[in-house]
């Protein structure tokens, strides 16, 4: 019972925080500047990690498919097809989001948490600034707009990684791989993937900001808030993934 009460209290607190975040900004031009800044800090700075994991994951998926689908009855181009579908439907949105929850989520929670315990948030409140809106809204807008680009980048880099491994290892004919990634392409899959990533971006940013915003005490608590932010946003991403797949694909 205590656990349920605690959970409901947190959901209520989160909802109220989001109410403050989405209230009318003091001055739109300042928020626009902050959105551009956050796009660079949270989005552009994540391009590297998204690229590295995508190229390796695309290569590994291609290798695994080649090994497991080795049969005279299965055409080789299906390996390229399966790699493309894996990247579009799950990897480039869900797995990349889970990795970003670790990188961006902990960054947001620790940044806002440190601001809380060093009274920087109190200072904003005293000035009459809606601190929740000023600090969190630009981050949410920046990630929701930018992370879908990371998904597109991840799809391209991942499928290129598969091609690279096909070419370098000789495990399959590269032309078959190309034929596979071009066959039976459904543009809706991309839309589905982008919608998922936009939702995940909101989850990562808002949940992490929530844990940072309500951090109390000292630097140890900021560390704990950061860990909680990553764990909870990862779980919420997985739950949202299930719900969105049911809603959008079935």
């Amino acid at each position: 019972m205590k656990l349920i009460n605690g959970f409901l209290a947190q959901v209520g607190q989160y909802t109220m925080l989001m109410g403050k975040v989405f209230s009318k900004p003091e001055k739109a031009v300042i928020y626009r500047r902050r959105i551009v800044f956050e796009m660079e800090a949270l989005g552009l700075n994540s391009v590297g990690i998204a690229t590295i994991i995508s190229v390796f994951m695309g290569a590994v998926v291609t290798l695994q498919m080649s090994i497991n689908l080795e049969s005279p009855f299965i055409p080789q181009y299906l390996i390229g097809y399966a790699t493309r579908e894996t990247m579009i439907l799950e990897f480039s949105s869900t797995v990349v989001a889970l990795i970003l929850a670790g990188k961006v989520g902990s960054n947001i929670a620790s940044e806002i948490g440190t601001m809380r315990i060093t009274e920087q948030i109190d200072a904003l409140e005293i000035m009459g600034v809606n601190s929740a809106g000023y600090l969190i809204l630009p981050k949410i807008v920046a990630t929701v707009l930018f992370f879908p680009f990371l998904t597109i980048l991840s799809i391209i880099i991942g499928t290129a990684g598969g091609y690279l491994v096909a070419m370098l290892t000789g495990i399959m004919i590269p032309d078959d791989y190309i034929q596979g990634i071009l066959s039976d392409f459904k543009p809706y899959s991309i839309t589905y993937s982008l919608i998922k990533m936009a939702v995940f971006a909101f989850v990562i940013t808002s949940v992490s900001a929530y844990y940072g915003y309500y951090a109390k005490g000292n630097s140890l608590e900021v560390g704990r808030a950061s860990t909680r932010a990553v764990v909870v946003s990862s779980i919420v991403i997985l739950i949202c993934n299930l719900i969105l797949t049911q809603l959008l694909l079935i």
Partner: protein
Amino acid sequence: MIKADHLVKSFDGRTVLKDVSVEFETGKTNLIIGRSGSGKTVLLKSLVGLHEVDSGDIFYDDICYTSLGFTERKEIRRQIGMIFQGGALLDSSTVEENVRLPLDLFTDQSEREKAERVDFCLRRVNLPDAHKLYPAELSGGMVKRVAIARAIVMNPRYLFCDEPNSGLDPVTSVVIDNLIREITEEYGITTIINTHDMNSVMEIGEKIVFIYEGSKWWEGTKHDILHADNRELNDFVFASAMAKRAKGLL
């Protein structure tokens, strides 16, 4: 004038402020003194609305602050400047950006006007060349001076200072004290300083309120404090053996 009327504040069932009533006078440096944990920071944060009081009223020049809604409170808060114990400067912004932030958010001044106002405030606190520095590059005294510049940039009617001398050497403390006193006299504002530094008390304390275990125990001027016969106040003011001997308490 700022008036607290029968303020009560508790945290988790522990009463920290016990029926505190006090009036702080306009154009004077009002000091709240007391031992660590006596409730003086809670009183200060309750006065500015960072803590919601359980009961009692707070008046800003006859406006009952406690009965105001969120939006109306923001209007009062824009007339408040506050200097926090650690400075509470935004780490990711330069000195100039920190001082300019309230102007950016709440005024329609041109870039040139804002730059002139920031220059004026930084010159006023003797930091004419610190514009491009980040808080991490400043000394403790400089951080406090930037915090003062930020607090006065909007021409506040009320100035709150939470232990402005903590962590500073005696010479820098006197500089900060004098700066606050000069600004108070220059602009005719109501200044409330929370401190346990007896040098500050004797230097700038025009009205002094002594808080003991959450209650207002004594109030008077810096001249009265030396001759008071309040035992708890004397224990605080003349804490060292040497001071006790000088007062004739030993």
